[in-house]
């Protein structure tokens, strides 16, 4: 009995040894697929819908047609119904989430004092080095270079290229992005730039002896060459005084979640009058 078990184990080891390359490949593919599953973006939603659709089709044609056992038929019917409901549920959930988002944007658009054009993101640059978004609005719709791009939460970026029907927006999370900004509470000025972290930017130029607190709101400054003043950039999430030099190391959590961005507004109004009025600073915080 003992030697039989040993032989079985030896055989198993031999099989693993022969096919180890393929086993490793299979393992890595499974891990990659699990990682892919963890994402929640349009591509994965599309695949999930397809999988459910195909399994529904298969279930439709592979159901046990035998009427000998009543319970089996009932079980198939219930399974079919369950698949149909799952399909409907996915569609309805998508529609519900979109509805909530669009309602929020509509409310924001109504209370926002500047002229805007709503635009949809049709392409996010797959290259991490060029953080740009392609929008479905262009010159014909009134989009011009150097116009600001926002959401109801705050600043997204700047229009850097315009064709007749499309435009390209450089976002905050780009190596070459810079913007003059200020702290809402203390009015201290500095420069916002990307440090390579997702949904996080740095704020440079505040002396170590000056007052900055975690939670302070950062807005675009009146000194900004490209942006209108008082657009919300984000909130101070970390301060470090233990670095060389005379300035603090300040990190800002961006107001906009760039991972979930789908619709934006292009601000076509370039007059600084409206955005300089009192109360405008809180328009992104929903306090107006």
């Amino acid at each position, binding site marked *: 009995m003992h030697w039989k078990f040993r032989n079985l184990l030896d055989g198993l080891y031999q099989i693993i040894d022969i096919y*180890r*390359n393929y086993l*490793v*490949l299979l393992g*890595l*593919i499974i*891990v*990659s*697929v*699990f*990682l*892919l*599953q*963890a*994402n929640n*973006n*349009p*591509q994965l*939603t*599309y*695949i999930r*819908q397809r999988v459910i659709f195909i399994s529904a089709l298969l279930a439709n044609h592979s159901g046990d047609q035998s009427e000998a056992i009543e319970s089996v038929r009932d079980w198939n019917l219930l399974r079919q119904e369950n698949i149909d409901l799952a399909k409907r549920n996915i569609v309805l959930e998508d529609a519900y989430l979109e509805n909530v988002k669009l309602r929020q944007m509509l409310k924001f658009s109504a209370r926002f004092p500047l002229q805007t054009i709503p635009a949809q993101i*049709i*392409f996010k*640059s*797959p*290259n*991490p*080095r*060029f953080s740009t978004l392609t929008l479905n609005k262009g010159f014909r719709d009134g989009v011009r270079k150097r116009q600001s791009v926002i959401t109801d939460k705050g600043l997204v970026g700047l229009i850097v290229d315009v064709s007749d029907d499309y435009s390209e927006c450089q976002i905050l999370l780009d*190596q070459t992005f810079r913007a003059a900004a200020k702290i809402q509470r203390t009015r201290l000025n500095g420069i916002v730039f990307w440090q*390579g972290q*997702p949904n996080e930017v740095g704020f440079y130029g505040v002396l170590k002896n000056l007052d900055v607190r975690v939670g302070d709101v950062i807005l675009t400054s009146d000194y900004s060459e490209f942006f209108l003043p008082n657009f919300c950039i984000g909130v101070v999430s970390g301060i470090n005084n233990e670095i060389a030099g005379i300035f603090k190391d300040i990190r800002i959590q961006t107001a906009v979640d760039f*991972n979930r961005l789908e619709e934006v507004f292009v601000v076509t109004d370039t007059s600084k009058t409206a955005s300089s009025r009192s109360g405008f600073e809180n328009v992104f915080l929903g306090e107006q």
Partner: protein
Amino acid sequence: MRRKRNILIASISLTALAFYFLQITFVNTVLAVGQNVPDLLLILAIFVGFRLGPMPGSIFGFVAGFFQDVLTGFYGLQSLTKTLVGFFSNLFINQRVLLIEKYYFPLIVLIGSLLHDAFYYWFQSLGSKLEFGSLFLQYGVVNSFYNGILAFLLYLMTPRKFLDFVHYDPRHEFDY
């Protein structure tokens, strides 16, 4: 054998680390032509798979891809594509072509990059208004040729000693 294996893993890891930092600093800015950028880690994954065998190639491809996924926030996609490319690049190994490897290797990189980018951009186009064809032609094909050219230059710059050290011998495959 074990010592050589450890040195090999350390040298490949250090090279990968250097390539990773080069990619996010120098390559993405200086070597960018419009939006087309070569992929150093893909070239290295193909090299590792080609020279050391399918298992090291796929493991290296997975790790390198994962680090690139961290940058893009789209976990799993680059890991999967680079794993497959790292694994299958070894199919091209042939003792006779090692004599003309400096011309042969860039060709493998070109083919590997085309397959990698085809899968990558096909996945990107799922469920969106993007057309796979135009996306692949605009980015995939151009990037693949760029990778091929860069692979040739990198091969010429690589010290002969290192190339001899990272050498795949199917008769004495490393016991990984």
